[in-house]
């Protein structure tokens, strides 16, 4: 067993990462040791990256123990770069983390300062000077290259910068190795681009509210949400966009982030509508010991052109909007798959003649069926037992769900042939169906069919009877 990580006082007493536990115990007998849990660490680091969303939407994880934050355009919200760094370190300390911040113009320089520097912020004017005294390891080099550079006497970044590039490259065994070192050097100096990706996609529109006092009640949260919605919707209107999904992030005092999300069937930017969608979820949000920062992000945004206001309330478009909003409210509470519209489908097979489509989709026109169709169609036709069967005519009596029904009136047959183009290569061949509309002596009406033909009995088996639907 070896040491995986150390706290400050252990390091001060001469222990090192990678040291055998027995050696460490020999040096310091009362050493406190915990089993390393790298998975839990990774999870905590990710949670911390999410937590940093309070400062910037662009956050990501760096290795096992670092975080990237791109604070471009965010620092002024916290009183400048120094204010942001102070705030970050202070809050992290409250959460029980020791942080080494590094802020610079390039990711490479920030990394170097945070891991090896003394002062957390590099002045853009003298970034070179800030980096010069740092060891070459600060350039994120692989250990072999760093060792080679040290053997060459290039212990810090300063001399490396002064060296002509061609000379530097020649000292390495392979051109690739030299090139890698130069790349890292250029990236730190801002001479070469270093593309990095954030953990979560950056939302196009956000509204953020820092609260002087933590909000503890649902009513308080509602007021916060109102202000965020108003701001976000104003931004959306300016950009002529509408949101399809929104997330409200509540950054709690204890470092947790509570989130609630809503989705809309069509792009919208009506704060009242969004508020109603949030309303129910807001009660479920756990405010803990209070919320100190709230963030509203529009995660999915689509173009939405401004429209003329309807002159009459009965305007068809206005009513369509109201239906869309109703559908959104139902979908957010009950789940989108539960809200459907019926749409005709080009097929003469009864069960394929309709489809259930999302309710926000524009519905196609239904043609009046020329043949009788039942009000309700069973998902799966139920086999029935037919008594007094006469070939090629409707049954005189049948048993469905254990009750015998005598047929008084019958209409049919309506022959429906299987769709042969679906049959190609299918092991089980669908059979011809003859549909009958029947009424029993109690006046109940059913839609029955016989599958298969009596003449074809030899080829495709005995005809079978099914009940497929009921009439009103």
């Amino acid at each position, binding site marked *: 067993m070896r040491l995986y990580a150390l706290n400050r006082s252990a390091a001060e007493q001469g222990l090192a990462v990678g040291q055998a536990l027995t050696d460490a115990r020999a040096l310091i007998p009362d050493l406190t040791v915990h089993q390393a849990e790298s998975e839990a660490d990774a999870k905590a680091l990710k949670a911390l990256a999410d937590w940093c969303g309070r400062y910037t939407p662009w956050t990501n994880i760096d290795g096992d123990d670092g975080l990237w934050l791109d604070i471009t355009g965010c620092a002024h919200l916290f009183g400048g770069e120094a204010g942001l760094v102070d705030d970050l370190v202070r809050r992290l300390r409250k959460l029980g983390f020791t942080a080494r911040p590094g802020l610079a113009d390039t990711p490479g320089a920030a990394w170097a300062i945070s891991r090896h520097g003394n002062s957390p912020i590099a002045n853009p004017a003298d970034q070179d000077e800030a980096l010069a005294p740092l060891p070459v390891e600060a350039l994120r080099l692989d250990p072999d290259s760093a060792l080679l550079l040290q053997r060459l006497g290039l212990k810090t970044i300063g001399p490396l910068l002064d060296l002509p590039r061609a000379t530097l490259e020649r000292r390495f065994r392979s051109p690739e190795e030299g090139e890698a070192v130069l790349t890292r050097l250029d990236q730190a100096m801002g001479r070469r681009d270093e593309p990095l990706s954030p953990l979560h996609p950056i939302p196009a529109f956000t509204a953020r509210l820092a609260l002087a006092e933590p909000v503890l009640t649902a009513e308080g949260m509602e007021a916060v949400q109102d202000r965020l919605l108003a701001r976000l919707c104003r931004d959306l209107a300016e950009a002529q966009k509408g949101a399809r999904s929104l997330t409200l992030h509540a950054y709690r005092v204890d470092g947790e982030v509570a989130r609630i999300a809503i989705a809309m069937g069509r792009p919208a930017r009506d704060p009242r509508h969004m508020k109603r969608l949030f309303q129910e979820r807001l009660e479920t949000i756990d405010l803990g010991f209070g919320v100190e920062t709230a963030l509203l992000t529009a995660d999915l945004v689509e173009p939405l052109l401004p429209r003329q206001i309807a002159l009459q309330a009965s305007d068809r478009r206005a009513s369509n909007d*109201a239906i869309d909003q109703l559908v959104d409210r139902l979908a957010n509470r009950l789940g989108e798959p*539960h809200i459907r*519209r019926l749409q005709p489908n080009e097929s003469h097979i009864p069960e394929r003649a309709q489809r259930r489509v999302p309710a926000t989709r524009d519905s196609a026109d239904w043609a009046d069926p020329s043949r009788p169709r039942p009000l*309700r169609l069973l998902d799966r036709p139920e086999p029935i037992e037919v008594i007094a069967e006469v070939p090629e005519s409707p049954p005189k009596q049948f048993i469905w769900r254990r009750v*015998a029904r005598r047929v008084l009136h019958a209409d049919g047959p309506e022959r429906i042939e299987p769709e042969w183009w679906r049959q190609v290569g299918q092991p089980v061949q669908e059979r011809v169906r003859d549909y009958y509309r029947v009424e029993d002596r109690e006046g*109940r009406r059913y839609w029955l069919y016989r599958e298969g033909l009596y003449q074809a009995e030899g080829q495709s088996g005995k005809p079978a009877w099914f009940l497929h639907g009921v009439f*009103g």
Partner: protein
Amino acid sequence: MTIPLDSLSPFPHGPPVKLFWRRAALTDLRRKVAAIEGRPPQYDNVRHALPDKAVPITEAGSPIWRFGVEAIDGALPDGRLANTGLHDITADAYGDGPAAVGFCLALLRRLQATSAGTGAVLWCENAQAAREFGGLYGPGLAALGIDPARLVLVTVGRDKEVLWAMEEGLRAATLTAVIGEVTTADFTASRRLSLACADSATPALLLRHHRDTTTSAARTRWRVAARPGVADDWDARAPGRPRWSLELTRCRGGRPGSWHVEWNDATGDFRLAAPLADRTAAPQPAPVRAWGGPHLRRAG
């Protein structure tokens, strides 16, 4: 696979088929002529010249939602169904569930014919009820004269959710009607719906399970049972228009009563079923049960 030649013809046998075709063609032609002349299709069959005084069939443009049958409208307060109230519909027995849905849709069709009925309709179904007799079928609705495209369907698992969705639909105040199917709804729930109806001036129809006997705050409460109908006008063997026995068990400000009505899909109107044609007046034998014989009786 070879298909026998005669199976390719859709109706491979004799006279009833010809009759069937003729009937279909005739109905179709009448409908077309009526559409050209801009009047509701009429049927001139003597069997339907009933003693009941004719009331205008489709009251297009009129805001009054009613049956169009004097006997029934007369029993309702102000001679109409309340546009701003809840109406309960209960099937008389398990097997009458589809009849109750049919009646409900007939009322919806009457509502859509009025000037207040141009909007969308929210239909909230209980998934269990939908499994019982199947889900709503668009072509069948279209055949009844209801445009399935105007229907928003909500399918959920519990009564509570159905009632919530109905209330939410009523509060939107833009719908023509809200319809829900539940197994049971207590008085409080029906009261809530009634209030929402009144607030938004939207009618609601609540289809209840046949065994549900809880009290309700609805304006009217109907029990519906299927009744054997007469044969079709053009084919003595085919089922004709559906007939239902309606019982108005509760009606605030009206007179409870019961009627036998016949519904006409083509014109969208009710008629009182002629007493003579109504065979239910004669005592009905008990329904024949399967497994009736002792040799077939099963436990459970």
